[in-house]
């Protein structure tokens, strides 16, 4: 473990945690623009977090300690996920601890924690939301793993940093299998982050909500942590996408110039990705919940096709 590695690791972790709400704000702002609204500004998530942290927490009478603990588990696991994904540099000290498959496991851990907390109170909404979340989750996870396997087959390693290094260092080569994986990943990203074709993040309608139904009972600092964690999750997913499909510009070795370059490039990529996400959410309509298996099935199909095409074409 080098000193530089530790420095980039800590810097990336703090930066990710701090600017993750900004990405959420940017996506919401773009959505407002595309829908001919003025929007609340890209710093709205910070204002919301500040407001929530100031309030007093109200907890249901029959809540167990699990209910109190889950926001911290959620926040912690999302921070871990964000520190594994190479968004700024590949020289990360923590990256040896967990590879791409463990990353999927970390997301699963967070999902299980929030579902348990939702069922803990015993309200109808919590149970319903948890059931739906698990449905979407268990369908999305194999698709995510297929995407990661395709990238791993190309770079012969499941470590995310090695994947980024191989993909960014090679000559410009077209990988048709990565095109399939890219579509599959986009669909998984939309489903896992409760975005529009599967779940509407702005909806509080009992028939449609998934993520919101689970966190209805939370308030104040607990809610703030959960909201923050979900924005870090979105950030982590977008940076995984960048790392797999557009890895150029991520600092490769222990040099300061690369790091100085990596940040503006990352911000530029995030701006483009956030706008793209908002565009997708504006164009698409929310699907019925029973269409979600079909949506995720298609994502899985694309993931498998990516792998098959890799075996056929050798690229």
């Amino acid at each position: 473990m080098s000193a530089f590695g530790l420095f980039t690791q800590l810097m990336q972790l703090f930066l990710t945690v701090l600017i993750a709400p900004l990405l959420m704000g940017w996506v919401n702002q773009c959505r407002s623009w595309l829908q001919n609204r003025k929007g609340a500004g890209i710093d709205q998530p910070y204002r919301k977090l500040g407001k929530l942290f100031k309030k007093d927490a109200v907890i249901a009478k029959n809540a167990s300690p699990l209910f109190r603990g889950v926001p911290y588990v959620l926040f912690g696991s999302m921070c871990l996920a964000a520190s594994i994904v190479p968004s700024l540099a590949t020289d990360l000290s923590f990256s040896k601890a967990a590879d791409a498959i463990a990353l999927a496991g970390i997301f699963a851990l967070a999902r299980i924690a929030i579902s348990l907390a939702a069922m803990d109170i015993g309200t109808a909404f919590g149970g319903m939301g948890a059931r739906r979340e698990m449905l979407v989750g268990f369908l999305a996870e194999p698709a995510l793993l297929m995407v990661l396997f395709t990238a791993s087959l190309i770079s012969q390693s499941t470590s995310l940093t090695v994947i980024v290094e191989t993909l960014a260092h090679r000559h410009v080569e077209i990988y048709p299998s990565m095109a399939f994986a890219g579509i599959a990943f986009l669909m998984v990203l939309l489903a896992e982050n409760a975005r529009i074709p599967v779940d509407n993040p702005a909806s509080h309608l009992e028939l449609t909500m998934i993520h919101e139904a689970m966190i209805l009972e939370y308030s104040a600092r607990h809610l703030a942590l959960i909201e923050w964690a979900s924005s870090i999750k979105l950030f982590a997913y977008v940076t995984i996408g960048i790392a797999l499909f557009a890895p150029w510009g991520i600092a490769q070795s222990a040099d300061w110039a690369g790091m100085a370059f990596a940040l503006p490039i990352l911000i530029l990529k995030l701006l483009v990705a956030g706008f793209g996400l908002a565009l997708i959410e504006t164009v698409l309509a929310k699907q019925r919940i029973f269409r979600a298996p079909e949506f995720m099935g298609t994502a899985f199909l694309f993931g498998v096709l990516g792998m098959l095409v890799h075996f056929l074409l050798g690229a």
Partner: protein
Amino acid sequence: MAGQFINLLASILLLLAFAMLSQRRIKLLVSLFMIQGLTLFTNTIVIASTTGQAHLYYSALLTLSLKVVILPWILFRMIRQLNVEWDVETLINIPSTMLAGIAIVIVSFNLALPISHLAGTITRGTIGIAMACVLLSLLMMITRSKAISQVIGFLSMENGLFFAATSTTYGMPMVVELGVALDVLVGVLILGVFFFQIREKFESLDLKHLEKKEE
């Protein structure tokens, strides 16, 4: 580099085959067929320019005029006149069709492996994809109940065959290609007449009515 580009285009063709398989709306189905034709045209042009096979340019132009302009135009016209813009009815639900599609892709990739070892073309890797495209179009014809989507399946199967011919042996002789193109064109025209007859007789384009015996 050109080889990679051809591989990419072949993958797009496979993607389009799956998109057609999962598409519920007829109008989008025709648009997908159009994009398929356009991809095929680009692919043929790239193969022609890298291998220096002059006759491939002609077949590419034939593809462009027939499959991107004329046939979609006829199909759009037919859809408008028959007023059949509603959702396509599938006999098997779409996720199961997609799973069957994966099985087909695996089978055809395996079948194509020995052929691609024999072929000497730069496109030999894509033979499996071509075969998968043909079989997926066949699957689409089987699982759809409306006559017009079956015709689109038939046309995309012809696209797959054309693609298979270009990737195994750099295309068929010009006479054969012209003949096939004419066949397809005439076939669509005749089937168009059939559509009107079927609808007049049964007041629907659903082919299950044809299974009943006329008294």
